[in-house]
């Protein structure tokens, strides 16, 4: 079967710093793909390139059977890649419900005229949007906080809200940038359950994570980046014994 996303020879430089060099990956339909690596390895840069936030210097992208050219953030969302952010970027002064409703923007149509006239089509679209948003808040487990402002939610719930907002765009690929960062053991166990549920609902997940236990227990495939290069790709079991990975994490002398 053709993979959902395959990228080939992606490169990105910031001035003299090579953030990504010749990175190739392929992610299969319906899997959880883990992307790990030491700090500054280029994981988030790869995410940003993939979601159109920064333009790559070179590389080819195939997503869902199509070549992608000229990536811009909103087009990537239209294509079906949704993301969360390492440092949470919610719409702070909107309620949890409104945040998720914004996620529905890309799959709905109402314009200015519809907003002013509120014809039947617009009204039914609006109520469908609200209903779907409620469902998604329930899905990620924060339905008790529907009307709270995003900025007033506890940290773990903000992470969940970001996932709900991303899911609202009906992504084929959900890209999560360190969703477990700052979570305690209970919270990250609950997150693991949520991600398993998302995979079971046939959304492919690309996961950047530092929590090794989470990655090992959850991912079907893992790739390791170090200084912008891919040094490993394979099953989670193998990664722990790979000398290049050990060297990257622990330094050359110990390998």
């Amino acid at each position: 079967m053709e993979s959902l996303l395959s990228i080939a020879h992606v490169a990105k430089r910031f001035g003299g710093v090579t953030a990504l060099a010749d990175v190739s990956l392929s992610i299969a339909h319906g899997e959880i793909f883990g992307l790990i690596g030491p700090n500054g390895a280029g994981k988030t840069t790869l995410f940003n390139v993939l979601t159109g936030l920064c333009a790559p210097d070179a590389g080819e992208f195939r997503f869902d059977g199509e070549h992608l050219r000229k990536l811009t953030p909103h087009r990537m969302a239209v294509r079906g890649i949704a993301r969360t952010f390492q440092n949470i970027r919610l719409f702070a002064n909107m309620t949890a419900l409104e945040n998720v409703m914004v996620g529905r923007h890309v799959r709905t149509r109402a314009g200015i005229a519809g907003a002013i006239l509120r014809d039947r089509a617009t009204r039914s679209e609006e109520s469908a949007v609200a209903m779907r948003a409620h469902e998604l808040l329930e899905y990620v487990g924060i339905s008790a906080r529907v009307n709270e402002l995003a900025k007033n939610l506890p940290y773990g719930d903000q992470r969940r809200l970001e996932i709900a907002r991303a899911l609202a765009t009906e992504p084929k690929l959900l890209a999560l940038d360190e969703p477990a960062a700052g979570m305690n053991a209970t919270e990250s166990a609950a997150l693991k359950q949520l991600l398993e549920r998302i995979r079971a609902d046939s959304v492919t997940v690309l996961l950047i994570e530092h929590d090794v236990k989470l990655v090992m227990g959850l991912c079907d495939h893992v790739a390791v980046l170090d200084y912008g290069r891919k040094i490993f790709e394979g099953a989670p079991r193998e990664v722990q014994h790979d000398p290049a990975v050990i060297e990257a994490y622990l330094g050359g002398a110990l390998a």
Partner: protein
Amino acid sequence: MSDLISHWQNLKHNSRVVWIVYAMLALLLAVLPFAVSAVAGNAWVRILASVLLYIILALGLNIVVGFAGLLDLGYVAFFAIGAYCYALLASPHFGLHLPAWLLLPTGALVAGVFGVLIGAPTLRLRGDYLAIVTLGFGEIIRIFLNNLDAPINITNGPQGVDRIDPLQFGALSLAHSHQLLGLTVPALYNYYYLFLLLVLGVIFISLRLEDSRIGRAWIAIREDEVAAAAMGINTRNIKLLAFAMGASFGGLAGGLFASFQGFVSPESFTLIESVMILCMVVLGGMGHIPGVILGAVLLVVLPEALRYIGDLQNATFGRVVVDPSDLRLLLFGLALVSMMLLRPSGLWPSPIRKREFAAGE
């Protein structure tokens, strides 16, 4: 005060009470010009009409600044475009006298187009940088109006355009007094009622826009543009839409202003006007429609009311100690500083930020 508000919150659930309040408000607004002219004279009815114009302007700017978070310091340019659009097409200047029902929407449309034209080059800018560039565009429009009297006389330059047609819809001219239910409604009052009607329309449109897919997209861009784009919002188009909608309100107000005054000149559209409109939005409470209306009312009425300080000084001291116009600017500055210190989110900020407490109901 807070008791009163919570009492009102309870009453709000009673739809009959709400209707009675609205009916009383409508009655109040309907008799207001008669009452005001009886107490304070016709000059104050004129001020009422200009309050209504500024409400339209402030609500227009509120879409750009309050909803979409784009700091626009050249907003008065759209007011000017609407005004000149009306003035040039309904005055002896070109000998054109197009009907008002055509010109008012045209003014809004032309201003909306200019909103997109001026908005487009600024799309990559944010915050202070955007403010500076829009300020520049606002001045460019005014300077154009000032200088387009040569080589071909289009705007009549600094002299402005005069003898602009009053508003007329079919046989109904707003320039004459009418008999209604045994009451004589003078020309000035006609304008008041028309403006009031249009203000209600603009409030209605603002409210509907705020609570819609487009409105949410605007607010999302204000909150976090990067995240909004990542959620699939085409930030370029949605920002241009905000510029266009805001500008069209300004254009409508401009057309009304031109017909109401009968005269327009570039000096009505200076930077200080943009700043005043922005102050109305900020003082009232950015993004909150009732707050913005309050801001507009206060910033038009208070400076006018302060004119009486001169008379008051004469009565007490026998002479004018402080020139009232100096006092106005002084108090204006004082009001802005104390607002920033005491109520940084405006006099009447959005209560949606309190909605969370009502979630249990």
